[in-house]
């Protein structure tokens, strides 16, 4: 679906590349997570996946990014946005300002694509229902909480029916309640089988949803694999990523002999609960 081949990129304002020889494949129908420390190049990669690099940002690049059969650098941005939807960090900045109610805001992308009205109404209703924001339909987008605005931003992309959805740290500017709303929306997106690339620093969110994780450090992809493997990798600290609370608690317990020796460290709440339950039942080998 989206493929990076030996992609290196430097912003026009900086001499040093931010991404170095990135090879990464986002496969159809899979939920990919990209994790990395601050400044590791996560957001730059997200922008490149959505085509805003190089089209909007400029800069120098080598290698190639493709979306399906399209080479991003050779494809006009208006054609790319029909294939890749992008959700950014700041929910407020994604409100278009062009429409006065949530339902109109969500429909805005379809209007610009020239989608016929009946079809547009069906799509808007369906996506609001799926993301559970139908009660907000007639409110002004500017009156919503940050979490609600971010879910509207996700809905505004889904309604355009892109083939892949790229989300750049969608919970980074939200309070816990707002983050929960977005997480629930992502679960609903995942249930549709849509292709997703979620750039995120919240490991627990990735552990919950991702089929596959990619770790980026200093602009290079340094590890890839299933979340259970990646999020318990001993090199996490070296990559500046840290661990989930569940992995950290289980590691502490293992040091004290309170975690089953044969059981790998968990990345999720369910895994941690199962391990501690086993330990409580005396299964420590």
């Amino acid at each position, binding site marked *: 679906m989206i493929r990076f081949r030996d992609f290196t990129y430097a912003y026009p304002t900086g001499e040093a590349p931010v991404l170095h020889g990135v090879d990464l494949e986002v496969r159809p129908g899979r939920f990919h997570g990209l994790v990395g420390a601050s400044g590791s190049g996560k957001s730059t990669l997200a922008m490149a996946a*959505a085509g*805003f690099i190089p089209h*909007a940002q400029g800069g120098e690049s080598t290698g190639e990014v493709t979306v399906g059969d399209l080479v991003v650098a050779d494809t006009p*941005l*208006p054609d790319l*946005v*029909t294939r890749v*939807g*992008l959700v*950014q960090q*700041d929910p*407020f*900045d*994604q*409100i*278009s*300002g*062009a*429409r*006065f*109610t949530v*339902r*109109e805001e969500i*429909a*805005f*992308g*379809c*209007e*610009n*694509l*020239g*989608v*016929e*009205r009946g079809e*547009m*109404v069906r799509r*808007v209703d369906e996506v609001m229902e799926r993301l559970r924001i139908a009660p907000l339909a007639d409110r*002004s987008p*500017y*009156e919503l909480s940050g979490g609600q605005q971010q879910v509207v*931003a996700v809905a*505004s*992309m889904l309604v*355009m029916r892109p083939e892949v959805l790229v989300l750049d740290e969608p919970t980074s500017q939200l309070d816990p309640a707002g983050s929960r709303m977005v997480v629930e929306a992502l679960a609903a997106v995942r249930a549709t089988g849509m292709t997703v690339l979620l750039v995120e620093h919240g490991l627990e969110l990735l552990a919950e949803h991702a089929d596959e994780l990619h770790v980026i450090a200093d602009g290079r992809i340094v590890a890839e694999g299933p979340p259970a493997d990646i999020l318990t990798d001993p090199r996490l600290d070296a990559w500046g990523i840290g661990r989930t609370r569940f992995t950290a608690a289980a590691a502490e317990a293992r040091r004290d002999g309170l975690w089953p020796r044969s059981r790998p460290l968990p990345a999720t709440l369910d895994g941690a609960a199962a391990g501690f339950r086993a330990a409580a039942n005396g299964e420590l080998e």
Partner: protein
Amino acid sequence: MSTTLQFYRAGDSWVHRLNPVTKLAFVAAVTIAAFGVERLWWPAALFLLLEVPGAVIAGVAGRFVRMVLGFFAPFLVILFLLQGLTYPEPGTVLLHLGPLEVKTEGLVFAGTTALRLLVMVAAFVLLLLTTHPGTLMSAMQQAGLPPKIAYVVSATLQIIPSFQARANAIMQAQQARGLEVRAGGAAARVRRLLPLMGPLLLGALTDVENRSIAMESRAFGRPVRPTAYTVVPDSAAQRAARWAMLALAVLVIVLNTLGVFS
């Protein structure tokens, strides 16, 4: 809440249901008509016979009067002071105020001008009170307003309160660090407020970049004919009424030129 939503009063009156373009045509027609006749009673008649009943039918009469007076009263005072006291043409002096003279002609001129402006302001107020801004923009786009111009208008209307909120947040952050914004004279206050503009403008510029990415993600500006989610009802009768109102306004000017109102 957006600036314009502070004005709008929801309702289901006949005036509310009119297509906003018809109401805009009314604004244009009464304004042209008011300025087309040089008689004191003419704009007063337009206001009392067309605009006030419109506000009553729409069920917004109280707010209509408050808003019109709110917009208009300060301007009215200035207009009467300037025109009443400084009318340059010779005329009948009613009163001497030191070196200044209050002339009948000055007061009539001020009154006519004030009433003409009153007609224009009142028509706009009636439009704002009975038309949701979103419906107004949708109707204008349906009538052929280019999407980019519609966007600039809508975004400006909605973004102002957010910009004010950010300015307040920056000011409060600086006050928390000991900046005294209210002490001293006006010049000192302005000097102290100037550094606050930096973060406000830089933040706004960042917003613009992010918002432009968000807009491009939503295919804004794509070379296809946009469709409309919100379709504002219109009718042949309303389209005819719009042309009729404008034709009547022009007719009024013609009749005035022919001396019918003399």
